[in-house]
C-alpha cells in the first residue's frame, strides 16, 4: 500500500523528466510500429520547440512515407513534387532568408528521383538543412529495391538479394555531398537506440545553429529501419540494421569544420 502511494507521489507535473512535445499535433502517426520516421519527426519537433523557432521554421515534406509531415509537426510546411524538395527549399530560403528552412526526405525521394536537385542544391551551398532518412528500400510503394539498398538485401524487386553485377552498386549520397564545397556540415546518424537518438538530436540542433549563422548546406543522414518491408519485428530490424547496414553506412560526422578546429 505504501509502495502504491509512493508511486502515485512520483506522478506529479513537477517531476516530469520527459514528455511528448506540444509541437507534435494530436494526430496519431500513420507510420508502422517501430518506424524511425516517427522518432525523427519527434526529434525535429523537440528541437524547434526548445529553440523557440516555431514561427520562423518552414519544413518541406517529400513524397514517400513521410509525405504527411505537415500533419504531425505544428509548423508551416510545403509539399514538394517528388524529389524536388531541395529546389523548393532553395526558393523559399532565397525569398525569406531569415526563416529556418529544412527538407525532410527519404531515400527514394532524395537518392533516386531527386539526385540532381540534391547534388546541385548542396553544390550551390544553399543555406538549408536536408534531413535524409535512409532505410535502403522504397517503403510506401511496397518494398522495392532503392539505390541505397545494400548488396544481398532482399526486396520485392530483388527477391534473391541485390546482385551487384546486374543491379549495380549502392549509392552513398552523404559521402558524395560531403565532397562538395557548398556543404558545411555533413553527418550520418541513426535512431535505433537512446544514445543514437540523443546524438541525432544534437546533430540536427547543430545544423539549425549553422543555418542561423548562414554557413552553407547542412546534410544530416539518418540510417533508419523499415520493419514492415524488411519483414522483421522492430527490435529485429534494429539489430539487422546494426549488423548489415552500418558496415556500408558507418555513423559519424563526415564534415564538420568546427570540430576540426577544436582538435
Amino acid at each position, binding site marked *: 500500500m505504501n*509502495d502504491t502511494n*509512493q*508511486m502515485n*507521489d*512520483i*506522478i*506529479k507535473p513537477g*517531476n*516530469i*523528466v*520527459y*514528455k*511528448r*512535445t506540444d509541437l*507534435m499535433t494530436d494526430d*496519431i*502517426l500513420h*507510420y*508502422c*510500429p*517501430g*518506424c*524511425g*520516421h*516517427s*522518432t525523427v519527426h*519527434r526529434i525535429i519537433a523537440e528541437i524547434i520547440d526548445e529553440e523557440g523557432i516555431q514561427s520562423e521554421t518552414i519544413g518541406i515534406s517529400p513524397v514517400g512515407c513521410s509525405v504527411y509531415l505537415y500533419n504531425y509537426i505544428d509548423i508551416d510546411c510545403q509539399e514538394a513534387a517528388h524529389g524536388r524538395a531541395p529546389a523548393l527549399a532553395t526558393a523559399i530560403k532565397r525569398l525569406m532568408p531569415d526563416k529556418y528552412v529544412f527538407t525532410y526526405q527519404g531515400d527514394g525521394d532524395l537518392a533516386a528521383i531527386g539526385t540532381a536537385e540534391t547534388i546541385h542544391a548542396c553544390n550551390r551551398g544553399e543555406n538549408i538543412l536536408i534531413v535524409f532518412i535512409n532505410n535502403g528500400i522504397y517503403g510506401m510503394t511496397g518494398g522495392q529495391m532503392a539505390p541505397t539498398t545494400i548488396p544481398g538485401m532482399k526486396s520485392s524487386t530483388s527477391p534473391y538479394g541485390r546482385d551487384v553485377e546486374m543491379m549495380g552498386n549502392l549509392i552513398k549520397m552523404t559521402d558524395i555531398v560531403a565532397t562538395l564545397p557548398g556543404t558545411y556540415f555533413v553527418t550520418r546518424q541513426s*535512431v535505433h*537506440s*537512446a544514445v543514437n*537518438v*540523443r546524438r541525432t538530436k544534437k546533430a540536427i540542433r547543430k545544423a539549425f545553429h549553422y543555418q542561423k549563422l548562414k554557413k552553407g548546406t547542412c546534410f544530416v543522414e539518418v540510417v533508419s529501419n523499415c*520493419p514492415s518491408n524488411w519483414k522483421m*519485428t*522492430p*527490435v529485429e530490424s*534494429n539489430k539487422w540494421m546494426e549488423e548489415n547496414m552500418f558496415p556500408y553506412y558507418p555513423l559519424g560526422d563526415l564534415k564538420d569544420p568546427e570540430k576540426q578546429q577544436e582538435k
Partner: protein
Amino acid sequence: MAKIKGNIVVDIERCKGCELCMAECPTGTIAMSKEVNHKGYSYAYAARPDLCIGCANCAIVCPDGVITVYKIKI
C-alpha cells in the same frame, strides 16, 4: 545517498506495441500487456514500477512519443 525513483505513464491508445522501449529499458521495468488497445496493439506498461530509475531511455527511443517519465530524489 539520495535514492532516485522514477515512474512512467504510457498513453495506451497511442502505443503501437513496437517493443523498442522494452528492449531499451536498462532495469526491466517495462513489459507488454496481454490486453490490446482499440487499434489491436498490445501496449507497453510499467510492470515493475519499483525498478524504474527515470532515465527516460524508453521515452527517447519511443517512435510515437507515448511515454511520459517522472523522477524524484528521495
